[in-house]
């Protein structure tokens, strides 16, 4: 059979093999996506039919004090997650890379990554109890803050939960940075070392510039991840006290399934999606570019 004939036979039957994936994705992911988009412009309680309300739900997002609070908290999460776990991940990667026991010394940081967000919430909820493990440790070392109610007021509760997720996420980032470090050619680095570059200067002038692609990916993933923050907050504070630690992902859930304001929930979801999408472009371009080169 000639090549062309082969291609023709293949192409004729190809849709059969592609259909299940396309159908499942269209029905369970894209169709809901379209419905949510429509509902976000309506007043809808899930029972009566949706009533067109234009941009009302979006306006509420920027005028309702609770939702503004959630917006600010979500922003805190984004800023927190692109700084703390990324910086720590980089530090761990640079310190362990090329280290004799590197793989072993990295393990404590990777362990929390294998744990679910719910379990992280359970553990840190326990650590941060008033006069709990953290308080007792601070007291033992004579440090201030032993009696702080870590989760009792905003924005402190959000910051402590960012610490909890940093505990979970730093190791993953370290792993990604190690992959990045491994892709740096060894010879120019050796030459720089011979020229007397070492320590921080070696890092700054020779390693850091070459880590840019992987840094983009890590930051992109951190932004996308932080916008979705739900599990840990749900377990540790349920967004409270009041709404002081609510994130937009949590507001969406509450508006929809607790307050039955489907339109408002949908508007929050769409807003989150747009921001996520914008952030994804940062690293998707890199990923898909990669895929395209291969095929």
């Amino acid at each position: 059979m000639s090549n062309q004939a082969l291609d023709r036979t293949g192409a004729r039957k190809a849709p059969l093999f592609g259909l299940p994936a396309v159908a499942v994705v269209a029905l369970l992911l894209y169709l809901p996506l379209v419905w949510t988009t429509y509902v976000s412009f309506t007043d809808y309680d899930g029972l009566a039919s949706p009533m067109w309300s234009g941009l009302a739900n979006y306006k509420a997002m920027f005028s309702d004090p609770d939702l503004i609070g959630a917006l600010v908290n979500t922003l805190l999460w984004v800023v927190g997650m692109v700084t703390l776990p990324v910086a720590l991940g980089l530090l761990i990667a640079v310190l362990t890379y090329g280290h004799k026991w590197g793989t072993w010394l990295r393990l404590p940081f990777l362990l929390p990554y294998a744990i679910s967000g719910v379990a992280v919430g359970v553990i840190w909820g326990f650590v941060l109890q008033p006069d709990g493990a953290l308080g007792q440790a601070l007291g033992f070392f004579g440090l201030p803050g032993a009696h702080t109610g870590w989760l009792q007021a905003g924005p402190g509760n959000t910051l402590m939960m960012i610490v909890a997720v940093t505990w979970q996420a730093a190791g993953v980032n370290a792993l990604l940075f190690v992959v990045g470090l491994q892709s740096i050619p060894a010879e120019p680095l050796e030459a720089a070392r011979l020229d007397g570059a070492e320590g921080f200067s070696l890092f700054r002038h020779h390693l850091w510039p070459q880590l840019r692609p992987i840094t983009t990916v890590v930051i992109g993933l951190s932004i996308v991840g932080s916008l979705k923050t739900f599990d840990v907050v749900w377990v540790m504070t349920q967004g409270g006290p009041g709404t002081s630690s609510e994130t937009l992902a949590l507001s969406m859930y509450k508006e929809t399934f607790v307050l039955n304001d489907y339109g408002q929930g949908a508007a929050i979801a769409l807003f989150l999606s747009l921001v996520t999408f914008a952030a994804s472009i940062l690293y998707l371009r890199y990923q898909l570019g990669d895929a395209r080169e291969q095929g």
Partner: protein
Amino acid sequence: MSRVKTAVLIVLGLIWLAPVYLLVVNASKSVDGYDAKTVWKPAGFSLFANFGDAWSKAALGDTLVATTMYSVIAPVLAVLIGSAAGYAIVVLRLKRGFLWFVFIFGGTIFPLQMILMPLFSGYANSGLYDTRTGMIIVYTAISVPFSAFVMRNFFTGIARSVFEAAVVDGGGLFRIFRSIYLPMAGSALAAIFILQATFVWNDLLLGLTLSQSDSVRPIMPALTGLQSTYGGASLPTVLAGGLLVSLPTVILFLAAQRFFSRGLALGQF
């Protein structure tokens, strides 16, 4: 310099292990022997009694069976559906294959929040709400895009002559897929399976939204239920529950670390 590095890493590592230490030590205390003022000090070993408590109070038994089902069946289905798509696009040269690929892969770049409400309504109307079948369907759908992504890349690396030879040998397209392409992709299939099984096991949001009864509800929502009834379940019990549900993924992770790092590089999670 190297000593300073090691010292910094050890100190940081110990800080990182502290919460794990606290979890294990306090999950092991007997409910009566637990004292909120001395959480750092080990006291007794009632871990298995607490496991038992968590098991009965959160109805973890039922939920564990259900969650195990979801974490095995959904990723297997997703792997098959995703590989079929990869096969269609790369090997069979589906028309406008790259566009279809972007369509499938694009299914997961928006947050779950975007699909929760319609899924809930749709499930409620079609009788899929609070059924094991419904949970398997949704977990499969969520896992397909990543699976198709990896399989497409994998099949791209296989020489065209393999397909030509197989056709000349007189194999049907389905048989070529089943007995030549799938077996060759063993490691990629395993990597997808492990990553998606972990995702399903750790899921909270979909379980919370689409199920409520003990026999359908996955394990993470069940654990949050245990946690929120602090009055009913004592702290060591809650912590034992947290430890129990973490063991499978931690063991899987340690056993298959390289698969995880590959998944990371692909941008999942």
